């Protein structure tokens, strides 16, 4: 380059060739890290250098164009620099256009946000290229809105596409938005629908954020779409992409741009001064005779807040909850119910099924804080006090007509929480398994993510694989009989029985795949908690068959659940029993797991399958090492 600077006349095309060849061979980092900064400096104001640069890049043969282009896009410090370096390359060169508009955005998804910013910013900086920008946006939206893409592409790719859409939106100007408003709206509608249908929370959230942004852009004066979702770092980062910092900033570190949110929040400053400014009471002069002193107050210690009394008997609670018109009493009953149930187990057992029925149908009459949690805890209390009849009732109701999805999921949550309570010893100490850590299992949140359970299973797997390293250094915890033993079957088998019989309002294998996913996760947890129970082998066998029947399900949430089931089975059923009674199913499952590891689009599924394979290997090794 210095030679060119010196004015020596040389063939630019030769340099292009060299550039291309080097990049294709993978050496683009070294070459471009030297080349690009110099080019950047040189092209800042010098038009001739700019033209030379353009010719340089245009001269690269097509077969090496992608490598060169990618290198440029990745290393350029900003969209404007890229614009100076590449000029209108994308318009002139077909291959370049293909790489930039299709390949990088739609077919690959490993690039960083900065790369996306550079690319799309570059497209927006020149009027010739803006047409490409619009085209790119439309294609991105098509992909974003297609339901098969949402279902089958990995979460990372969807995140990438969403980011690209947001950046495109940020570059669009008013007239352009006007022209494509209708298409934006249509794709918005379709896209939102497929995203919200998905069972994975991250995808739902991505859908919500993008939809909000699009609607904000197209309806600047009317009411905009507003969703409720968790506003964590990822969401904030995505929203920050909507705002572009001007290119004259030193380093366009847009990822740190969290403080700029369009529109700026209005100042909440000017509080309306209250129409009555309280006047400070004048100090009574002490000289004034105060005849009030003659009046001696009476004892007022009995004067306390009036609280409605909660009923003390379980049967009274039943009455109040079903038929009482007195809302204060109803509220007091709901709050007191869990405690009463736990204190009066005998009385509860007499009316347990009725109480469970009332609680399942209980709706919020007044606005109590934490109503859902109160109801759930009461249900868990009833279930743990009288497990067998109530479990029977709940599991039959799960498959009955005319329940809402929310109620069915409530049933599953309650079964899991009760099972957890029954299987842990009352001393609330650490687990009964020596050496293994008991990760704290908390009340399942209402949205029911399976993250807790995966974490537990993971830790358990970790502990098992490193068992030879940790000794018996902890004190043996107090052991108590596992109460879940006698009732595990009652919880488990009815749930697994009817999953393939569709009802008019409830079809597990059809539309209600979200509930199916939750059911599968529930079964995994129940299996896990049934370790050391008598029925565990039978449960394991039934569960493996269930998994086998559903293994090709299209919803990745369901597949993750199935893989957790397999983990639970491998962890809970004693190894000898597994190898003796369940051999064929195990071998078939292993083949399936290998398939999943290689071919499943979802990263979590692959990871879980890999863990399961590891567990199986460990089992084999353990049995082989066992001399008996």
């Amino acid at each position, binding site marked *: 380059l210095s030679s060119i600077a010196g004015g020596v006349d040389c063939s630019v095309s030769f340099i292009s060739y060299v550039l291309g060849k080097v990049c294709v061979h993978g050496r683009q980092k070294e070459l471009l890290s030297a080349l690009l900064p110099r080019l950047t400096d040189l092209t800042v104001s010098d038009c001739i250098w700019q033209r030379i640069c353009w010719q340089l890049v245009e001269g690269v043969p097509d077969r090496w164009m992608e490598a060169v282009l990618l290198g440029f896009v990745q290393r350029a410090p900003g969209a404007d620099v890229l614009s100076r370096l590449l000029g209108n390359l994308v318009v002139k060169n077909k291959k370049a256009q293909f790489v930039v508009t299709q390949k990088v955005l739609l077919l690959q998804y490993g690039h960083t946000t900065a790369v996306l910013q550079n690319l799309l910013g570059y497209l927006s900086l020149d009027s010739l290229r803006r047409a490409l920008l619009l085209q790119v946006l439309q294609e991105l939206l098509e992909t974003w809105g297609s339901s098969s893409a949402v279902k089958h592409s990995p979460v990372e790719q969807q995140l990438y596409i969403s980011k690209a859409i947001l950046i495109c939106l940020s570059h669009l100007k008013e007239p352009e938005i006007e022209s494509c408003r209708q298409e934006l709206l249509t794709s918005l509608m379709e896209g939102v629908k497929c995203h919200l249908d998905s069972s994975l929370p991250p995808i739902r959230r991505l859908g919500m954020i993008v939809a909000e942004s699009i609607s904000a852009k197209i309806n600047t004066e009317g009411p905009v779409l507003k969703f409720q979702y968790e506003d964590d770092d990822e969401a904030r980062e995505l929203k920050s992409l909507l705002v572009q910092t001007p290119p004259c900033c030193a380093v366009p570190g847009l990822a740190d741009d969290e403080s700029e949110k369009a529109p700026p929040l209005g100042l909440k400053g000017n509080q309306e001064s*209250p*129409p*009555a*400014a*309280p*006047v400070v*009471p004048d100090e*009574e002069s002490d000289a004034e005779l*105060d*005849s*009030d002193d*003659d*009046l*001696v*107050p*009476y*004892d*007022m210690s*009995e*004067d*306390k*807040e*009036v609280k409605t009394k909660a009923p003390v008997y379980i049967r009274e609670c039943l009455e109040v909850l079903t038929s009482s018109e007195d809302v204060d009493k109803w509220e007091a009953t709901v709050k007191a119910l869990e405690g009463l149930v736990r204190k009066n187990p005998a009385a509860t057992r007499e009316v347990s099924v009725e109480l469970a029925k009332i609680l399942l149908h209980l709706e919020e009459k007044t606005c109590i804080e934490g109503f859902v949690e109160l109801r759930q805890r009461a249900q868990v209390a009833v279930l743990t006090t009288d497990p067998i009849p109530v479990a029977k009732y709940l599991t039959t109701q799960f498959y009955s007509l005319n329940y809402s999805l929310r109620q069915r999921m409530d049933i599953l949550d309650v079964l899991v929480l009760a099972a957890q309570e029954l299987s842990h010893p009352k001393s609330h100490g650490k687990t009964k398994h020596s050496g293994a850590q008991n990760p704290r299992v908390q009340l399942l949140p209402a949205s029911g993510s399976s993250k807790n359970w995966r974490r537990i299973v993971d830790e358990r797997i970790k502990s098992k694989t490193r068992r030879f390293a940790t000794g018996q250094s902890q004190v043996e915890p107090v052991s108590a009989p596992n109460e879940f033993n006698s009732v595990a079957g009652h919880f488990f088998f009815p749930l697994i029985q009817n999953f393939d019989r569709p009802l008019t309002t409830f079809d597990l294998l059809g539309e209600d795949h979200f509930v199916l996913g939750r059911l599968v996760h529930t079964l995994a947890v129940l299996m896990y908690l049934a370790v050391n129970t008598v029925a565990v082998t039978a449960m394991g066998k039934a569960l493996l068959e269930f998994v086998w029947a559903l293994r090709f399900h299209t919803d990745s949430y369901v597949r993750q659940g199935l893989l957790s089931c397999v983990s639970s089975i491998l962890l809970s059923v004693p190894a000898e029993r597994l190898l003796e009674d369940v051999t064929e199913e195990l071998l078939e499952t292993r083949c399936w797991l290998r398939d999943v590891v290689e071919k499943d689009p979802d990263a979590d599924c692959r990871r879980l399958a890999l863990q399961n394979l590891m567990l199986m290997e460990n089992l084999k090794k353990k049995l082989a090492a066992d001399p008996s």
Partner: protein
Amino acid sequence: MALPPPDPQFVLRGTSAAVHTLHFNCGGQEPDVPILFSGSENGFIHVWNLKTHRVDTALDGHGRRSVYCVETMGSKDRLLSQGRDQRICLWDLAEGRTSVMDSVFTENVGFCRCSLLKVAQGRWLMAMAAKALEEVQVLELPSKTSVCTLKPEVGAKLGMPMCLKLWQLSGGSQPLLLAGYEDGSVVLWNLSMGKALSQLVCHPEPVMSLDFDSEKAKGISGSSEKVLSIWSLNEQQNLQVYRTHELVNPGISDITIRPDKKILATAGWDHRIRIFGWKKMKPLAVLDFHTAIVHCVSFSDHKNPRERLLAAGSKDHRISVWSIYTQT
């Protein structure tokens, strides 16, 4: 060591319905018997003889609709009662008669108690809620001519008038009206001009009841929340908040200041009657007798201070009569 609160001196039973309003008439000379008038939800007005503690007469003039205000006009023979049948009745009770002399059809279906003020011998002003939602109408009795109609300005959004108090600084001066409204504000009206002189937002909830001490130009109002608001009237006839007092339980249905301006009583939704010193709002006693909401409290007008009584009427059909702080 404070004494426990006193028990009621006696309890009147027999109304068989919730008691909404009480009025004493004990100022008469012998052989006049001290009387307590009570209005109930079943439409009856009971005339209680305070010597025998029995009902002397029961007046049925409101078609079995609840009576929520009773007042006497000058003597115990002239009674005014207001009921939910949208009528205000004027009774003639002399010599054992029980007839309705006259009535005013208010066309108002609210609960606002009317307020009476004697302006001259035989002439009374009565303020009542009128037919239109936010209006208060002032009539002259017994002629029933309308003196003025007080309309808040358009867009004021005061809501229904909830409680009224007519007063004048001294005999012969301008009568003024204090009205508490549904939006929690108290408005001072000038009757001759028909204009509002001052408005003060005292509560976030409707003003349930108010009372005013014209000597000290201080008033008190209670609403459905926990705070009692004490406000004052300055020389420019402007209302200002003086202080607030927080109660243990929310909800006040009635407030009344004793005629000697030393103490006041509040009737609460928590079934309790509270007594405060008026000068500094010092809590004096909590009278816990009733088992349901106390709807009204009233002080008697005995000439002899030792005989003064406080009566409270409640939803539990009882009227409790107390003798408290009679020594001062």
